[in-house]
């Protein structure tokens, strides 16, 4: 993440909210932030995959961050999408709401305490303590890699059955 830091050692994060928790996504990883989108459902896809959407001619796979982390699906469908790139593919992370862009000093990033719920610890790169709240820095690659794994496990299970 060295390219993420500015000369003064500050890193910019986009804050989003998922299931009541505020998460930070490094701004440089974010391709775009979209409002509620028309999403084409993909049958037989893992439950956490909401479907595909068209972002200016690119097909983007929409992933529900809530479902990926094992939370219940959100009640409202009008949610925000943060488009990120992972292994040369575009993914839209559907989150409950998008906050602001924060500049935080790289040196203040603390390791995730082990007392944090495993759900969050799994996908956390570290934690920032801001005056208002605890900000978990989301490891996007781990989140999406985990999703692919879940999916693989499900497939093997289905095959075994």
């Amino acid at each position, binding site marked *: 993440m060295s390219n993420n830091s500015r000369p003064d050692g500050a890193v910019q994060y986009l804050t989003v909210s998922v299931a009541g928790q505020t998460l930070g996504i490094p701004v440089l990883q974010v391709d775009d932030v979209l409002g509620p989108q*028309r999403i084409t459902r*993909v*049958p*037989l896809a893992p439950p956490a995959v909401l479907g595909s959407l*068209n972002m200016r*001619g690119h*097909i983007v796979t929409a992933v529900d961050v809530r479902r990926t982390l094992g939370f219940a699906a959100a009640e409202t469908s009008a949610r925000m999408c943060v488009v990120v790139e992972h292994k040369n593919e575009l993914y839209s992370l559907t989150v409950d709401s998008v906050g602001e862009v924060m500049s935080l000093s790289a040196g203040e990033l603390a390791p995730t305490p082990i007392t944090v719920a495993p759900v969050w610890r799994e996908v956390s790169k570290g934690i920032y303590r801001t005056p208002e709240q605890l900000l978990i820095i989301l490891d996007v690659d781990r989140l999406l890699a985990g999703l692919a794994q879940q999916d*693989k496990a499900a497939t093997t299970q289905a095959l075994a059955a």
Partner: protein
Amino acid sequence: MDDLLKEFLTETAENLAVLDLELVKLEQTPNDPTLLGNIFRLVHTIKGTCGFLGLPRLERVAHAAEDVLSKLRAGEMTTTPEMISLILKALDTVRFILGELETNESEPDGEDSALIAQLHALAEGDAPSPDAVEAIFCSQTQEAGECAGEAENVEALLEDIKNGLSQLERAEVLNLAASIAPLVAGVAIDPERDLEIRPEPVAPPNLVVVHDRDKPAPVPAAKAEKSETPAPQAAASGESAVAGQTIRVSVDLLENLMTMVSELVLTRNQLLQLARNRKDQDFLAPLQSLSLVTSELQEGVMKTRMQPIGNAWSKMPRLIRDLSIELGKKIDLQMIGAETELDRQVLELIKDPLTHMVRNSADHGIETPEERLAAGKTESGRIRLEAYHEGGHIIIEIADDGRGLPLDKIRAKALKNGLATEAQLAEMSSQQIQQFIFRAGFSTAASVTSVSGRGVGMDVVRTNIEKIGGTVELRSKEGSGSRFLIKIPLTLAIVSALIVEASGERFAIPQVSVLELVRARGDSEHRIEQIQGTPVLRLRNQLLPLVRLRQLLEIERSGAEEQPGGEDYVVVLQVGAMNFGVLVDRVFDAEEIVVKPVAPLLRHITAFSGNTILGDGSVIMILDPNGMLASMGEVTAHAPEEASAAAGPADSRQALLLFRAGEGAPKAVPLSTIQRLEHFPARTIEWSDGRFVVQYRGGLMPLMPANPGVQRIESGSQPVLVFEAGGRSVGILVDEIIDIVEVDFAADLAGSQPEILGSGVIAGKATELLDTRPLLALAAPSTLLSAA
């Protein structure tokens, strides 16, 4: 990899392909000076460049070949087939080393001394050279490795430099100068480098070299060009004019352009759709011109992906030449329409099947000269490759005037492999019999040659062609040759697709797999019938298995009852030899779509082959008929039991399945006892432990003929009624499934045989009601025992 090396590899690969062709031509017109000049120049280029790049092994081989060629060019020898073979062999070695270079970036270990010795023998063996100096030079060449530091090496280096300079563009000269400096400074740096033997220089070579070096360097000429050879000057300059008009562009760049243009087209379509709904006239004119320009741009970019099919044919002359020598046949190869263009991607995919088929024609098709003369044909056989456009397709014909497909042999083989019975073969047309060659493991080659007869054959060819949406047709007449017609789409990037809807979601089905659309309403001619919850459609006397798209994709609306208006349309799809119907709610237009791969996260879903963006901007999944067929088994396995629940009616009417089995009256069994109806392809039915079995849902299912009169079909598919006996499936083979009727059946006559419960009249015909229990007991005795 080093840019210079990379460039050398691509260039040399191209040169080698040209060399193959030219050498075969040379063999037909021996000592043609233009051809020889060309060939010499190409080999010389290869040699020169590898000397410069420091590839000693490669250089030695090229050098030895060049020696022979230079003799030929000087008119000191005449070309013989042996000579051509040897040079071709040298080129193969070059090709092998290049392959290694590409993977390892260094030359492989090893020696080609045997080959080189042969080449040298050839170069010297014939009439002794008039030029004594050259002979000396030749012997020095071989010693050059050892006598490092001798004066000749300086000359060799200078020669290398000269070759190198003429290879390079101006910008590279400086670079080169830097790398040359140490070479010139320390003469003995590379002892591996040997001398270049040029036939002409009797004059002090130094002068020539220096002179030459000064000339070509500042001219950023086309690289393939050499000022080296004076004889084919005309041919060379002609080529440079062409070379100046083309540039090398990386495939990635073109692919990228193609994607961008596809996006542009999609956006244009969206705009047009928007404009249609507006009254705003100001927009229309610029939009029209945008649309026009976009179309032309698309066309232009599509053209950049196009390559002449000749690229896939370039290996054929060499192949035919080698084969004719090996097999002792005389074969003329005709290639017509080599300039016919098709998509790069498609070209790659048909290369191998085409090669295979040409090889087949040469090996199986064309007879030996004696056989041909005896049959009253010309001594040499002919293979004709022809390509042309027809509609949105390209047609490739591979025809030979050989012996044609031997029907008797095919018959015998089919019989031996259990693909058909004698009776069935007797009824088959010769066309049908010929189709057997597309079956797996079917080769009629009497003996296994190095060429063919190894059982990997036409079935693979057919599968590969079908994979890209193509078809193969075969016409053959015994004694006068065979003709294969391959029809393939021009491009894979844009396909025509049928847009359908199920449960409110739209999907695209590639048009190539769609056979027909059937509207199946309750009151229409075609009616969807249910067998234990599994829908079937009787279409022109064929029982078509159906699958509900919404069920296959698990997108049934929860709670919502099936509306009577829904699932009206059956899209009949063909996958290989299998036809099946897909039930959808609505059918929209056909649309041209740009296929995009599915995200890796979703790639495991076999039902989809890709996705795309439609004109209205929405993303849509493209269904893969192959994948659908694969997952169909699973879906129908857990079909809802609704039908069986409904099958217990209060009245005495019962649903009966009518079928034909053996001689006599139609037979009937209560529909409720049948688990499923299946059609098994004949080849999947196997004989094991004294009975027929078929692999079914991961296990073996025994198959019993309904009675001894049932014909076991050897081609096509056999209808089977699947019953359940003691927890396992048992199949009963029948000849034909006639109908499903709902009648108030009362046996008018008690059965006279144990397996017939009674006879009655159904649909105006005497029908026997079959007791399936004895049959099932026979098929699965153990299960019955345990049940008792």
